[in-house]
């Protein structure tokens, strides 16, 4: 019931449509029960006494009633449909909004296919069963009431005989419901497994082909595909086990009607029996008793599906959002871009990913961050952009803890490129303008120029209108990185964070990009995370991370003199042996590259 109330709320003002649907439905039932009476009268008053002159007016009435009934039926469906669709749109929209605020944890734990299923299939089930099941239930209750009334009025003993069957039907329907619920749940779960396998296969098609794993993939798929078939058949089997029993019970009523009714006619009205007309009335009302009982099974089925889907959707809708807006936004009006990390510590479960990291970056400064794989570089970005909150210490921008910034303000103030480049299947132009949808074409072009994307984009047949594939497929790694860089630049945020942005571009391009970035008119605080010395060398200050701690820090020159991690990396990256390195740096100090 609670679930129904919850789902009902999503109809918003269309709730009244549903009420209207129920109203039309009730009117329809009324008209439907009227009709047999007309025909009973036709039998008793027109046909039996053969007074045929009254036939036409009565048939006319029947047609009018039928017409009204058809209209009621039509409006019931339409209103229910409108209410259902309203709930679909609102609920899907709400779930989408929820997805937009859920953090990386959620996406790590849940497969995309599952999420999509919740937001489409399950929502459809909820709204459909709501807007079609509720009027149905009202209709059935009403029908039963009317049938009882009609039968009781004609003959109460007879009615009691008819009702003997009902408890059995109720028990069966209840049993079926209990077993159907888990079966449906399983079937849905299996569908999401199937979805996940196919989605992964599509996304990983390059690897599948490279390793000639089509057969293996086929096998994986068949397991889920066959499993889905099996789960579905299981559910249908339960349905077909109880359904026929319920139907048979219903047909008992018809038989009693026919046999007992006929006997009552023979007994004759004067001896407490019934008339011919009343018998036809009995026979035409048999279905008003039967249908609700027969449909009971179907309803149980619908209700179980509704419950299974609602549970899943509610789980998503009420998912805790770890990162939330502060109660009061204390961010400064204009952001200068000072960034302070004060003894930042971050634990993921029992593992410490960041350990007492402190950095103090003045507005406009360029900072380089290097470190081995898994040393916590990307995590650093995540705490600044607040994808995750620090366990200890604090991150401050312009002296205000990022947890006191509104998320929108915070993230608008940071231009970010990610290691794992994600582009949307949209035009290059829209991709670059992603953070600033209303921007001028000029800004897009100039950002693309800075990121050195303009050249290759201009060579594409549709230029900036070229649609790139999802995740930027169709572009090379370096091209994707440059579009994503242009996207970050176009925001003109006071802080720019480049996480491994140029790993796939060649050195010359990188140099070009660096020069243009440095020449940008509005100075922004820049953090460059990279593996290449060439990427960070120009920075004002460089940090080396190792296992979540700061291992070395200083300017390029200072770090070279320290002869630590940075120095070693530098030597290795240029493919120099130790002896060579000494020679190279030795001669370099005299301003000549004469080692070659």
């Amino acid at each position, binding site marked *: 019931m609670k679930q129904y109330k919850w789902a009902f709320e999503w109809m918003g003002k269309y709730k009244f449509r549903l009420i209207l649907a129920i109203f039309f439905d009730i009117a329809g039932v009324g008209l439907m029960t009227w009709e047999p009476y007309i025909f009973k009268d036709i039998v008793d008053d027109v046909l039996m006494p053969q007074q045929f002159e009254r036939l036409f007016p009565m048939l006319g009435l029947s047609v009018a009633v039928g017409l009204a009934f058809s209209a009621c039926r039509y409006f019931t469906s339409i209103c229910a449909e409108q209410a259902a669709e309203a709930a679909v749109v609102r609920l899907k929209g709400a779930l989408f909004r929820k997805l937009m605020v859920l953090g990386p944890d959620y996406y790590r734990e849940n497969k995309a296919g599952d999420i999509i299923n919740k937001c489409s299939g399950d929502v459809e089930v909820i709204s459909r069963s709501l807007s079609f099941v509720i009027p149905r239930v009202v209709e059935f209750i009403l029908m039963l009431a009317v049938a009882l009334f009609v039968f009781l009025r004609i003959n109460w003993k007879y009615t009691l005989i008819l009702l003997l069957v009902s408890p059995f039907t109720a028990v069966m329907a209840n049993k079926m419901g209990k077993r159907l619920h888990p079966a449906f749940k399983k079937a849905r779960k299996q569908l999401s497994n199937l979805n996940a396998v196919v989605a992964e296969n599509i996304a990983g098609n390059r690897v599948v082909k490279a390793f000639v794993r089509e057969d293996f993939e086929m096998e994986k798929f068949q397991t889920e595909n066959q499993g889905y078939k099996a789960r579905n058949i299981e559910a249908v089997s339960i349905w077909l086990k109880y359904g026929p029993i319920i139907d048979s019970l219903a047909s008992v009523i018809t038989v009693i009607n026919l046999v007992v009714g006929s006997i009552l006619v023979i007994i004759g009205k004067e001896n407490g029996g019934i008339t011919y007309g009343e018998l036809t009335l009995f026979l035409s009302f048999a279905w008003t008793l039967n249908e609700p009982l027969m449909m009971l099974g179907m309803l149980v089925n619908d209700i179980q599906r509704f419950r299974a889907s609602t549970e899943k959707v509610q789980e998503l809708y009420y998912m805790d959002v770890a990162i939330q807006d502060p109660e009061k936004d204390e961010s400064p009006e204009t952001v200068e871009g000072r960034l302070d990390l004060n003894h930042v510590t971050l634990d993921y479960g029992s593992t410490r990913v960041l350990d007492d990291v402190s950095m103090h970056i003045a507005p406009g400064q360029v900072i380089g961050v290097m470190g081995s794989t898994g040393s916590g570089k990307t995590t650093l970005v995540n705490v600044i952009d607040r994808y995750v909150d620090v366990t200890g210490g604090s991150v401050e921008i312009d002296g205000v803890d990022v947890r006191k910034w509104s998320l929108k303000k915070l993230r608008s103030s940071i231009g970010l490129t990610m290691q794992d480049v994600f582009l*949307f299947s949209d035009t290059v132009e829209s991709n670059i303008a992603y953070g600033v949808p209303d921007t001028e074409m000029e800004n897009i072009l100039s950002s693309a120029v800075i990121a050195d994307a303009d050249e290759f984009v201009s060579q594409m047949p549709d230029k900036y209108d070229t649609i790139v594939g*999802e995740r930027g497929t169709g572009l090379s*790694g370096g091209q994707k990185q440059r579009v994503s860089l242009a996207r970050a630049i176009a925001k003109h945020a006071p802080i720019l964070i480049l996480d491994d942005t140029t790993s796939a571009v*060649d050195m010359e391009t990188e140099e070009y990009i660096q020069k243009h970035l440095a020449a940008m008119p509005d100075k922004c605080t820049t953090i460059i995370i990279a593996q290449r010395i060439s990427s960070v060398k120009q920075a004002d200050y460089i940090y080396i991370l190792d296992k979540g701690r700061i291992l070395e820090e200083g300017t390029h020159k200072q770090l070279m003199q320290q002869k630590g991690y940075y120095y070693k990396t530098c030597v290795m990256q240029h493919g120099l042996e130790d002896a060579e390195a000494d020679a190279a740096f030795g001669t370099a100090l005299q301003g000549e590259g004469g080692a070659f």
Partner: protein
Amino acid sequence: MARNKYNIDEELDAPFNWPQFKRSLVYVKKYKKPIAIMFILAVIASILGLVIPRIQAYIIDSLIPQGHKAIGTIVVLGVGYFIINVGVIFINKKKGLIGADTSQSMTTDMRTDVYAHLQKLGFDYYDSRPHGKILTRVINYVNNVSDFLTNGLINSILALINLFITLGFMLSLSPKMTLVVLAGLPVFVIYVAVTKPMQRRYRQKAANKQSNVTAYLSENINGAKVTQAFAREEMNSGIFDGLLNENRHYKLRAAYVAHGMYPIAAMIMRIVKCAIYIAAVYWFREDFIVGGMVQIGAISAMVMYSNRFWAPIMQIGNIYNQLMDAMSYLERIFQVLDEPVSVEDNEGATELPQIEGHVEFRNVLFEYEKGIPVIKHVSFDVKAGESIALVGPTGAGKSTIVNLLSRFYNVTEGAVCIDGHDLQSVTLRSLRRQMGVMQQDTFIFSGTIMDNIRYGRLNATDEECIAAAKAVHADDFIKDMEDGYDTETKERGEGLSAGQKQLISFARTLLSDPRILILDEATSCVDTNTERLVQDGIAALLKGRTSFIVAHRLSTIRNCDRIFYIQDGVIAEEGNHDALMAKKGLYYELYTSQLQELLGTDGE
């Protein structure tokens, strides 16, 4: 390349396509036997069902007037009536079981076909459309179509059978009255014919919009982090609302038409019923008024038959809606099945024997799009066991060259040969099995880290997988994880750093024990120290294997036997490091500028 994005409808304009429909019957044909059984059961059930009004009519018209002495017969007939009814119910149960099995089997078959074909399609297919739209075809559309094929199609044939049997019963009762019942039919047909085109248009539109919704949703789930970073949550939610509303608009339009079907049919049914009464009293008195008594049983039996006659017609009307949907879904499914496989085994392709690794490009020209060559008449010859570095600006064609080597694309002109075998003449399987390709985009499957490494060679033992991981120094970080090699990997390797993903992919590639190794930016996200360790670790493994390495880091490049400097789709320079340095050309410039810049600042 026809690309598609979330808000572009995939226009389809085939109303009812007969050949397409016939083609879909391929899936039905396989289940001839169960379907035949279903038909037989249906016919039996339908005939039994139609006996019922007869019993009723007999009781009312013939037995009741006989008075008390008929009570015994009435009870017996009542029991018979019940038995027949229960019989029908259980026949329908059996039919339902067979139907469920058949429909599920058809779904499974069809999905298997679509999926199998997807495995054959090349990169270009996947690169040119949102993945959500491909997924929808495999899952949702297939579900819909097979539901139609079994429930819809079989039910409509059953309905037709019912219709004809009912017709037979009506004729046996009163041929003249049957004509009255049939008179309503043209009205209904006209209604269907008039609304048909509207119906189709709205339904197709709704399906298109639905697919847009799914595509946008799927992309936003995958790109949620980017959306948050760019504070686009509100705007995207707005776009999504827009797509939903468009979808709703057409769904409702379709519903307005579709829901008219039942009330109209119900109305016609009612008028027909009235006509039966009128006919019985005025037109066919001789048949329906016997011995001064109006045959009420016969009239109500006729009314019952008329209802039974109209029920299947309404059912067919409903199925018609389903049919329209199914046709548009079928079209999309066949579109996938008909998608030409750009790279496949040519006729008479032979197994590529165990290769040495001698690679030749003979005047290779390649264009993704007609008229825009990406690789321009490139020729080279790489001896078995040689290591080649490909350097040059981004977009020069380095990745394309290595992709041609595994025949991920077909050359437009010229030929790529391995050990003298033209790649066009060998089977893809035998070729790719001997190539180890580590691509720019790493992909991690959900499963465990061990599963991911083993993907390279499915029958590899745990020890072999671990050895491969050790060679690329992935072992270090894997061991540090809570569950080690059994650590669960999420979809796309969420939770692993880009460098870690690369190392796992690298281990996977090494494990496949390839004769030719292609490393496309294999370690671009790995730190230099680890990279050095990786290089040392794999040095022994690389011995004797031909390798192509696309890289930007000089340290990686310098140790290769030969370096190709690629620019604008041609090999601008080639030679070993020393030779190219001596040449003082493009490579020299690249190398010195990097070093110079570095040393320059250092020296200041």
